[in-house]
């Protein structure tokens, strides 16, 4: 399959502008619409299936070392020593949740954090996998190469802002020079698979770099669903003339660029609102079941799991997909608070409980919607954290372990090499900051191929993909 060049991108952007114009009440030439569908068929064929990727971003940098723990004696002993400085971070082995890999790693045994009961259940039923020591890389990097600076490295390692951006945007040289994310870039390439690309990229938590494309734009949907602009939905202050004026004002030609782009967002919102509000399933009885509360280990009280509610919002959209004209969707959901420099033990227990219960709830919900084999959910995070604790937590690291769930996942297994635990090991840049052995691009590229991108398209989205061997894909998606 040929890859799309920049010229075609701009042509497609023109076409999309035309279809947006038609939604806004202007007429679009039937010729243009026909051209659009012809282009779509030439590009990808017309898919009859449905697939969705759900990115769960663990904001702040999740402690991978304490999420998936090696329990063989040498590893666990080294883990215990490294965590001895911070109370509660050297877990009792009996509290950990063992997992047995389908593909054993020689001499190693593994367990999950005590709070990840939900993930253990999914793992045991073959619907979750672990991807070990994954992080931002430009090329395979050894410690010697790192020390000699003989390979290019992502810019601003250990910085929240930049490493979150590097995870989400795949920028060859880091920094904030790239404004699009790989979710958005994938959406740009596969948008012809959706008859309405407005619903390709959806965030439940604000503007996500991950979902920013050059021609694809994200919708932000809260659990309240799409709320209309009151002044357009009902006569403004009782006056239809007021609503008419509002409509004109919100579509007027603006010269100042800040005003112009602000207006674009308003119009994107009004264009999507009606369709989404009629399609999206309701929350609760008759729609998508509400998530159960979680038992907050910090208070031992039941509390609302807002993360699970975000996943419910995603499920409500997926369940209503037939009205949206989509066969491919990419979602972005966040769970925040992982920057556990201090007070880590109770915080991480609370967060991972929400994570595990949320993922298990989502799995059950997707199963009841009959789409569990068509939706793949994966975690991402700023970075991992140090193995060595400070007095009450851990500091910014690099590589980390991640979780992928869904019926299409070759679950019950670990992909990538779990690192040797201990001080000054091969992948340790100091204090247990891990040099990743699997790049984000390999992880993402594997998901992208399942999602339906061609090898060529994957190389277009992930510029360093080819640096990781002749077959950089992980076996994760079978």
């Amino acid at each position, binding site marked *: 399959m040929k890859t799309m060049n920049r010229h075609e991108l701009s042509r497609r952007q023109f076409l999309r502008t035309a279809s947006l114009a038609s939604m806004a009440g202007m007429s679009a030439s039937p010729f243009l619409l026909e051209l659009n569908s012809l282009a779509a068929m030439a590009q990808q064929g017309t898919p009859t299936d449905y697939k969705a990727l759900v990115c769960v971003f663990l904001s702040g940098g999740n402690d991978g070392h304490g999420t998936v723990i090696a329990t063989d004696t040498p590893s666990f002993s080294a883990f215990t020593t490294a965590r001895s400085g911070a109370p509660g971070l050297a877990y009792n082995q009996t509290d950990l949740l063992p997992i047995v890999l389908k593909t054993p790693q020689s001499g190693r045994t593994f367990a999950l954090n005590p709070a990840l*009961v939900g993930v253990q259940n999914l793992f045991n039923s073959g619907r979750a996998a672990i991807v070990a020591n994954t992080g931002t890389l430009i090329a395979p990097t050894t410690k010697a190469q790192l020390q000699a600076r003989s390979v290019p490295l992502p810019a601003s390692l250990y910085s929240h802002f930049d490493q979150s951006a590097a995870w989400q945007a795949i920028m060859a040289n880091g920094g904030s020079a790239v404004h699009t994310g790989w979710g958005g870039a994938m959406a740009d390439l596969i948008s012809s698979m959706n008859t309405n690309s407005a619903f390709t990229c959806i965030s439940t938590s604000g503007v996500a770099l991950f979902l920013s494309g050059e021609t694809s734009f994200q919708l932000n949907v809260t659990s309240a669903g799409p709320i209309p602009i009151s002044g357009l939905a009902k006569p403004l202050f009782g006056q239809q003339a007021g609503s008419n004026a509002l409509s004109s004002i919100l579509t007027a030609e603006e010269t100042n660029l800040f005003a112009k782009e602000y207006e674009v967002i308003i119009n994107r919102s009004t264009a999507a609102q009606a369709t989404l509000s009629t399609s999206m399933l309701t929350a609760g009885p008759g729609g998508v079941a509400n998530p*159960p509360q979680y038992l907050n280990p910090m208070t031992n009280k039941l509390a609302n799991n807002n993360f699970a509610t975000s996943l419910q919002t995603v499920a409500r959209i997926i369940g209503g997909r037939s009205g949206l004209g989509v066969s491919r969707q990419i979602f972005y959901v966040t769970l925040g608070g992982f920057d556990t420099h201090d007070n880590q033990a109770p915080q991480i227990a609370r967060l991972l409980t929400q994570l595990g219960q949320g993922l298990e709830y989502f799995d059950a919900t997707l199963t009841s919607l009959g789409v569990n084999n068509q939706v793949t959910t994966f975690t991402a995070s700023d970075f991992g954290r140090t193995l060595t604790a400070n007095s009450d937590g851990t500091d910014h690291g690099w590589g980390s372990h991640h979780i992928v769930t869904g019926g299409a996942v070759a679950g019950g297994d670990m992909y990538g090499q779990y690192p040797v635990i201990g001080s000054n090991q091969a992948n340790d840049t100091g204090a247990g900051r891990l040099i990743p052995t699997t790049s984000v691009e390999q992880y993402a590229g594997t998901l992208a191929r399942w999602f339906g991108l061609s090898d060529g398209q994957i190389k277009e989205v992930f510029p360093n993909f080819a640096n990781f061997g002749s077959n950089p894909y992980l076996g994760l998606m079978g």
Partner: protein
Amino acid sequence: MRQRLVRSCSLSVILQWGFLAAVAVLMTGCGHGFDKGYASFISAPTGTVRVSQTLQLSTQTMTTGSPMSFWVNGVLGGNATVGTIDSKGLYTAPAIVPTPSNTVTITSLATNFPGDTPGSVTVNVLNPIPIITTVMPSSFSEGMSTITINGSQFIYGAQIIWNGVAVPTTYVSGTELAASIAAPNPGTYPLLVSNPDPGPANSATISELVGPGKVILAVVPNAGTSVRVTNSLKIGLTVTGTNNTAVTWSINGIAGGNALIGTIVANADGSVTYTAPAVVPTPSNIVQLTAVSADDPTVSISQNIAVMNPIPILTSAAPMTFNVGPSTVVLTGSNFINGAQVLLNGAPVFTTFNSGTQLTASISPTDPGNLDLQVLNPSPGPATSTDLIAEVNGTPPMLLVSPEDASRFLAEATFGATDGDIHHLSKIGYTAWLGEQFNMPATLHEPVVEQSLVLNNPPCNAGDLKCNTALFVQNAEQENYLQQTFWQQAMTGDDQLRQRVEYALTELFVISSTNPAVANMPRGMANYYDLLGADEFGNFRQLLEDVTLNPMMGQFLSMLGNDKGDANRDPDENYAREVMQLLTIGLYQLNPDGTQKLDPTGQPIPTYSNNDVQGLAKVFTGFSWNVPGDSSNNAWSNCCEYVGTGFGEDLLQMQNYPGHHSTAEKDFLGVTIPTQANPDPVGDLKIALDTLFNHPNLPPFFCKQMIQHLVTSNPSPAYVGRVAAVFEDNGAGVRGDMKAVIQAILLDPEARDSATASNNPQYGKVREALVRYTEWARAFTAQSRNGAFHLGSTEDPIFALGEMSLRSPSVFNWFAPGYVPPGTSLEKAGLLAPEMEMTDVSTVVGYLNYMQSAIGADAVNGPDVFSNYSAEIGLAATPDLLLDRINLLLMAGEMDATLRSQILAAVNSIAIPAGDQNAINAALANRVKMAIYLTMAAPSYSAQF
């Protein structure tokens, strides 16, 4: 096929089940070699089996003598996913119900008859029967209680069945479930666990005892804890622990209250409505509402309510035209309070209180032109009337600043322009205005928050540490008092420059109550806010030190309690990293004009490496809670040793604990602090902060962001360079003079040249939604209905403004200074648009709807902050004049002709009826609301340029 074969052998099969021992005798009917399928035939005694349980299949082996092979779903011998089967036909179900189908098919073949038709049975694998071992608590008191059930075999989706009804159940693990149980009456209730399909299965039923409860009352002041005279306030009450929820209410100990302290009536939903008296009670404006349980009269709860003065309404003045020089003006209206002041262009003048409906003021206007009259009622609940515009005869003098330019300046330097401020600034000019503002005392937030906490909670004795701790430093529930004072000062504080710059600084030096430790201390957060306000007109070096040592920042970026390292523990790097990246020097080396320095290959040059972070992290060790005179380990690690009204660890700068400070060598940013024999936390901190303060990146890094917050998202390098040069040297050899920097930002030609700016489509910024809201409130003198600015947080993206002060989701604020919206004309033009990062399809709708609700509110309905729009209503019959005023106040005169004509069309569609004055007033008010909303909805208003 199989059916037929089975039929042909049915006799022997049936007999085989009945008389196993005799089977060999009776098999002759099927003859030698058996019918096809006979030898491999299998059957199951039941079609279901629960997970991990076994099921013995029947075979013909005893008859045929042939061993058997078995497959489960086609897998020889089965596997862990579908279950296993041994050579004797003993099937063991898997540990988890197989998916997507729970039905497994077992096929068989008699090994001695390889050509035989295989046998087959299907078995449904069911979830296990749950087992309850313990319930915690084993009994509880009537009311709501959280129970946790421990046991085994709980499956995801399991339900707790309480008294025959399924309750929302939290699946904690295969051995633990939890639920909230409502048990309003004492008794013994059946409790069981039911596993979900397939194969729903109930545990044994156990009995749970619900005992008589201890009554607990809790007040739910959703509408706030203050109310203006004659107004009503609804207060909710929850009664738990009893079935008898009746209470009796009193005010200041008087059942039902009276006309002096207000009255109280019960509502059907269990709440009460308190109606304030016509006059603020004396000697205290605080009244105490008390509820006593009917079930247990020893149980009561009290809530203080502050009764506030009314909002003055100014309807007319006589005369309405004046000559320059001394005059007397009589103002008529309602709700005037003894002590009310008349404001002339925003400034108080000598006022005589005649009655609640009449004031006399002595004025001496100096300049011909418009004269803005208002009335300010005194505390408690100070409130200003909307404006009345009078006229001073004569030819207006040349103004130093045009009203449009004044409005534009005030949009940058304050939370919004007002008529009075425009008058004043126009007359005295920018520099004099800045001078006034620099010298104006700060309105503080911390004393207000403390007073609110004290007033609205049961009193604590000074020595009762537990009570004071709960009130001041473990009180995440009462952050709303901080939010109230934020709104009040943003909208009404006279020190507007300080308030606005302070707000910008909270977005650079971020702390946030999304951090649970910070959220516990609303008074400490208010104190942090005041600290920024105090230091913003001082020196940056002091600001940096005060921020560094503030315990709220200490908690937020975890420098507080940061311990020196040892073999197995490193110092916490959090503050070390962020103080460089976000607070002072940034990631990349900058030229003095804020542009990036590049290496020979064209790449930006990092300012520091991770080694610098680790070196600096050692400096920031050994600081923690300040308990005066106590540097014990207990003080080091426990927050709540020293707290009470007027003092506390939440307010004091962190103190140093030398024993916890690293003595190792500290290398950072080219500075080396050698290994120390004696730890020197104070000396090391000074070196570190001096190094950051003197770093060449600091001036352009800080100044560019301040320009972005106040003026424009993309200042030219020359503009940044001019301001940064002032940071470096204020002209008197002082580095870091904040007043000089603020003045340089606001008075730079690039900021002030409105004609150039409005002709450049790339100039300006998106106004923050929160600031757009305060601009409305200030322009139209909006007032709090209950006197407390009870708005709460406006962070909800779809139902509010999508942001709130001190509530940022992380240290990175609501938006990043370098944000570029992809796929936009801004990106193509190479422009930054930081505020666009919080502008999405939800927040744009949230803003529009929130504004419609705010603008549409009045003295009776809608959100707590509303405007009477009296000045605008006076212009509503002449829409052109109305739009002139709105255009000046909100858009600095930049409203274009198209927008103006669209708004005019909508305004003119509202006909002014004849006759009925109420109908006329309603139509005029509707015109005003229409015009203001449509202006504020316009994308060209959402941008500031």
